[in-house]
């Protein structure tokens, strides 16, 4: 059989209006999940560096569990598993946001821990020697510096989580990949449409990269 494939640019362009409705879902799941994941990350990241062992170990367990299992399994567990426990179905969008939140939360915990631990001991000593309490030293001296150092790895995690949302087509959320699959089912132009899907992901992640680079440059003063 002769290979008779010819790339159809028109199909790529035509797919745009069919894919666009997926973008708000992709953005909502990733940024909603990341926002929650950020707070989860700060919470467990700070527990992880507590001097008290019984505060540290829940953080260790959390990170190991959610970093050590695939996000696809996590979302399937939430979407299909949890309803058995709750007795009522979970909205697919909610399940997607929750999966990004618990998954990115585990990675962000480690980012927070690394950021805080990277601040020289002298900063804390200088703060305490001035009479600041440990909480004040953290709030006014350690955290602002740690946060600046956390921006690049946080950006990295943001980009990873945005791409992870593509897996949630399996639970039927109408995000980008799902919209593409639905459209392809009627046109059979898989290559053309998935190319456009990829371009749209790239547009989102690239925009984020640019914003982050500007944030980083701003934060460089005084470092």
């Amino acid at each position, binding site marked *: 059989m002769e290979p008779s494939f010819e790339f159809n640019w028109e199909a790529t362009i035509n797919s745009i209006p069919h894919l666009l409705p997926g973008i708000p879902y992709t953005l909502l799941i990733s940024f909603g999940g990341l926002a929650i994941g950020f707070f989860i990350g700060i919470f467990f990241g700070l527990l992880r560096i507590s001097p008290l062992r019984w505060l540290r170990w829940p953080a260790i367990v959390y990170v190991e569990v959610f970093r050590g299992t695939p996000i696809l399994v996590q979302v399937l567990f939430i979407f299909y598993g949890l309803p058995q426990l709750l007795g009522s179905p979970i909205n697919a969008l909610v399940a997607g946001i929750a999966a990004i939140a618990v998954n990115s939360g585990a990675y962000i915990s480690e980012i927070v821990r690394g950021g805080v631990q990277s601040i020289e001991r002298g900063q804390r000593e200088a703060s*305490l020697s001035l009479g600041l309490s440990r909480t004040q030293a953290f709030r006014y001296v350690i955290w602002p510096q740690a946060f600046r150092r956390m921006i690049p790895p946080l950006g990295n995690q943001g980009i990873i989580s945005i791409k992870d949302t593509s897996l949630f087509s399996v639970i039927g959320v109408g995000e980008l990949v799902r919209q593409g699959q639905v459209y392809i089912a009627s046109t059979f132009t898989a290559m053309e449409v998935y190319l456009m899907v990829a371009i749209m992901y790239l547009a989102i992640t690239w925009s984020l990269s640019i914003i982050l680079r500007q944030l980083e440059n701003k934060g460089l003063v005084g470092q």
Partner: protein
Amino acid sequence: MNDNAQQIVRMQQLNKHFGSLHVLKNIDMHITPGEVVVVIGASGSGKSTLIRCINGLEEFQSGSLEVDGNELLPNGKSGQALQTIRTEVGMVFQQFNLFPHLSVIDNVTLAPMKVRGWNRSDALEAAKRLLDRVGIADQADKYPSQLSGGQQQRVALARALAMEPRLMLFDEPTSALDPEMIGEVLDAMRELAKEGMTMVIVTHEMGFAREVADRVVFIHQGEITEEGPPEQLFDKPRHERTQSFLARVLKH
């Protein structure tokens, strides 16, 4: 010769261990307000550890320590007393430890505002006066990384003085500086000593020690081997260890 009640630091039989290492051994040290005490000794002798005990950056394991009437307890069990001591005792570090994310002026105003509760305009006014005193008023809006080492250390001095401390600790304040910047920092400290500030200084600058110290303390392997007025300790050291230490550091 000194009335015990008026001493700002009363350290008796202080012992500190790092694991199996006995870092400070039965240290007795009393400091009278207005006194300038210089602590000398080889590196690793415990001199930095000693002054870091005074504001609780290091814990000690036994003995008693009272700073400005507040008692520090062994093994870090001091609680509120430690907080009070730290607001009354300033410290200048070898590595400056300025806050890199804050401008020079914000470095100086942070503690007075957050700890003393001063409003911003009062804190700013005091900070400007102090920066002027250490000769860097024109750098107030810069960030620490934009200053030379000597300038940074003078900012660190102003930052500590902004809390209006009753006692100042200096932990090798010129050891991290390029030689040409040592003078400007020592000048600022000399000025402070002249004004009557109580100071405990760990330093390797023997000329400076001789000039400003009321008393020099020599530490060897965690013990006070010898102490006395600078003329006596530098010119007629009684102990063989003091003699050999001075012979080594004064040679060049």
